[in-house]
């Protein structure tokens, strides 16, 4: 194990913690921006440090293709290659393979697919995924899991869950650097509570440094989504970090944190920036909209990032989707927004004012009081009173 996780404060299920990794110390709940190919699109390492990022994701699949795991290893690991002094997390490569390659086939051995470079058949096994991740050298590495679409039903879901449990053991055996890299297991089981329960128990028995809740954020109903998160966080150990993969929207992060999750990743903030959408307390701002042309306010009046201190919605309106600078500036703000959200979550729990924070957050996002039912249900389980944010039923 190469991490320390200390819960500093709680509110019911929510926790504010300190996560110490080989390369940096982090405060959770926290959001991890995704730097797919060894860079967060358009932002420099220095900017990311300025914004307060602690952990960035790299995609094993993409990096193994270009520039290649051996090259990264030869050059001293991904930290050195991209000159990122803080922490890194790599995923297993499995998800990309299944979602990007229509000819991927999953067997007990591993994931067979056609190489996008030369069309040759290739096989990604748990052992190979870990070997690649050992070469890349991230602080946290992810087990290769058998991921199914959340909308899948039937025996495939159960098969995938059991295979995931068998594969995590192979991952553990293959892991050559347990004192430098933390291998997280991923809980699968679709939307089936029994399958999830079996998987949680199986993972916990292996005493891993941390656990991820996978197989979500894929188009399932929100009502199913939060219940799976709630069930898993209830079953996972208190003293280890819980990472909900692929989440996401600020609202989802607030709900999952209330339910006891600690870490999140998603391409959403950076991707949506490139399409001209800025994240703000009220929700989103579509900068391409004609009304933005004459709006001389900053993106977010409560934000102290470089972009909000300097530029107006009007100017950004003229830049987004047309100029590279537009993409850079909105990405910068969106990542800063997510880091501020992380800090707000951590500090509000730490300072005993988490319910007030959640209430304020929901009021901003739903000024008419139309808080979605799934959020109300989730908050009830989380033990947070949000009745004052919801409009009375007609």
């Amino acid at each position, binding site marked *: 194990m190469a991490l320390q996780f200390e819960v500093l404060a709680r509110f019911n299920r929510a926790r504010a913690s300190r996560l110490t990794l080989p390369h940096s110390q982090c405060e959770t709940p926290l959001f991890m921006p995704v730097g797919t*190919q*060894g860079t967060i699109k358009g932002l420099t390492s220095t900017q990311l440090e300025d914004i307060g990022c602690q952990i960035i994701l790299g995609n094993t699949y993409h990096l193994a293709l270009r520039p290649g795991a051996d090259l990264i290893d030869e050059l001293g690991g991904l930290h050195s290659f991209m000159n990122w002094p803080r922490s890194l997390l790599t995923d297993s490569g499995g998800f990309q393979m299944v979602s990007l390659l229509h000819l991927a086939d999953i067997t007990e051995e591993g994931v067979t697919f056609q190489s996008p470079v030369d069309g040759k058949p290739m096989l990604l096994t748990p052992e190979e995924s870990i070997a690649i991740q050992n070469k890349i050298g991230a602080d946290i590495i992810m087990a290769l899991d058998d991921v199914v679409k959340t909308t899948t039903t039937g025996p495939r879901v159960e098969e995938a869950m059991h295979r995931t449990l068998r594969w995590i053991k192979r991952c553990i055996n293959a892991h050559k650097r347990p004192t430098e890299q933390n291998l997280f297991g991923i809980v699968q089981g679709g939307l089936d509570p029994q399958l999830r329960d079996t998987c949680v128990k199986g993972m916990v028995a292996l005493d891993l440094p941390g656990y991820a809740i996978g197989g979500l954020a894929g188009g399932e109903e929100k009502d199913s989504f939060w219940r799976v998160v709630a069930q898993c966080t209830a079953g996972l150990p208190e003293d280890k970090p819980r990472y909900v993969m692929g989440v996401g929207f600020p609202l989802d992060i607030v709900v999952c944190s209330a339910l006891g999750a600690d870490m999140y990743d998603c391409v959403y903030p950076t991707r949506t920036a490139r399409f001209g959408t800025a994240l703000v307390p009220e929700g989103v701002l579509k900068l391409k909209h004609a009304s933005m042309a004459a709006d001389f306010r900053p993106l977010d009046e409560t934000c102290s990032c470089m972009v909000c201190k*300097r530029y107006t919605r009007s*100017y950004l309106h003229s830049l987004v989707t047309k100029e*590279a600078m537009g993409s*850079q500036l909105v990405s*910068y703000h969106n990542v800063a927004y997510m880091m501020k959200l992380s800090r707000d979550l951590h500090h509000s729990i730490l300072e005993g004012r988490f319910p007030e924070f959640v209430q304020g957050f929901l009021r901003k996002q739903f000024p008419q009081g139309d808080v979605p039912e799934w959020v109300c249900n989730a908050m009830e389980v989380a033990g947070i009173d949000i009745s004052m944010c919801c409009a009375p039923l007609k």
Partner: protein
Amino acid sequence: MKLVVRYRCGECRARAGLLYLGNRSHVLETPCLLLCTRKGLPTFIPPDLLPSIHPDALALHASPLHFFDSPSAKTLASAGGLHKLISLPGYTVAAIARDFVCIAEHGSSNKIGASFQTPFGRRTVKPVDYMDVINAMQPDIWASLPDEVPSWVTHKRNKQSVERTLNWLDSCISLKKDGMESGLGCIVGGNSVEERGFCAQEVAKRDVSGFCLSGFGLGESAEERGLLLEAIMKNLPDEKARQISGLDLPEEVLQAVSAGIDVFDSTYPHSLTMSGLAMVFPLDMEECLSGRTSENANDVGSDFTKINLRAVAYRNDTSPILESCRCYTCSKHTKAYINHLLNTHEMLAQTLLDIHNTHHYMNFFQAIRNAIQGGYFADFKAWFASRRQAVNEGILVSSAA
């Protein structure tokens, strides 16, 4: 705007000095380089990284033609001028029409206005529209609207461009907002020494703060350019600033400095960036002659001026672009990383390259100023030309070969 010439080259018209601008706290050392921008900001270098490019990197070239769509002159005026819009109050802004984004369409221009191909379609820009934008921008330096034509147009079309440019200069002067500095007068005349001389004389008679040498880099040869510049310069007052657009290469800059140009806007750093190239030419004559700098001229697409970072040779090269360079890119990142970013089409590649290339070109201008001040500019220029010649003749080869 006031130019104070402090040093002169004994063998040519090159001069080094200080350009004082109305309400700027800083002074521009000339010859100087303006950074190219799109809608006010550099293409890839964000405002928080600008200060790190170079201590001299305080002057921007913003073409008024970028402000005929969004943001508009009205938006600029509401914002209180371009400095406020781009939130760079301490920077010098030079509003000059000619740039790398909006291309003059000399065939479509008429006596009413100049026609340009822009990212938002073809526009004909009249002096009144042009000055609307200039007045809204509130720039520190601005140039009138020219009718630029390439070197191969007919004699008639060329004369027409001179006549229009002078008319439009007069219109621009009369449309200038009260309280604003007078602008640079554009000098055209194509490839004709006579027209160039005539235009220069005429512009010099107007109320201008300096001169914008237009219509260069449009098909004239280096020899022709030398004659045209001389024809202009001998008709211009020594104490007013001269700016030129459209010259990119170091050799072209040196030629123009020789002729007495003070202000440049060059997109050379940016064009290299867009091709995945990094500037590496040595700037120090002494160091170079003593053999202390290294060469790697034989790489694919490389010569002693630049290296092609897409080349496979750099895949695992953990050295910075240039060992002696102190820019952000060279102090933080390796050729291998930039090679990867280029191969994966990541925007960070352009940001890092733009920072390095701009930094290096600014250092080149510093070397030019040092040479003029030190009295060895003619030697510096000759040395630079000889190295290029040596590469062309295959004399300079890679030390790795």
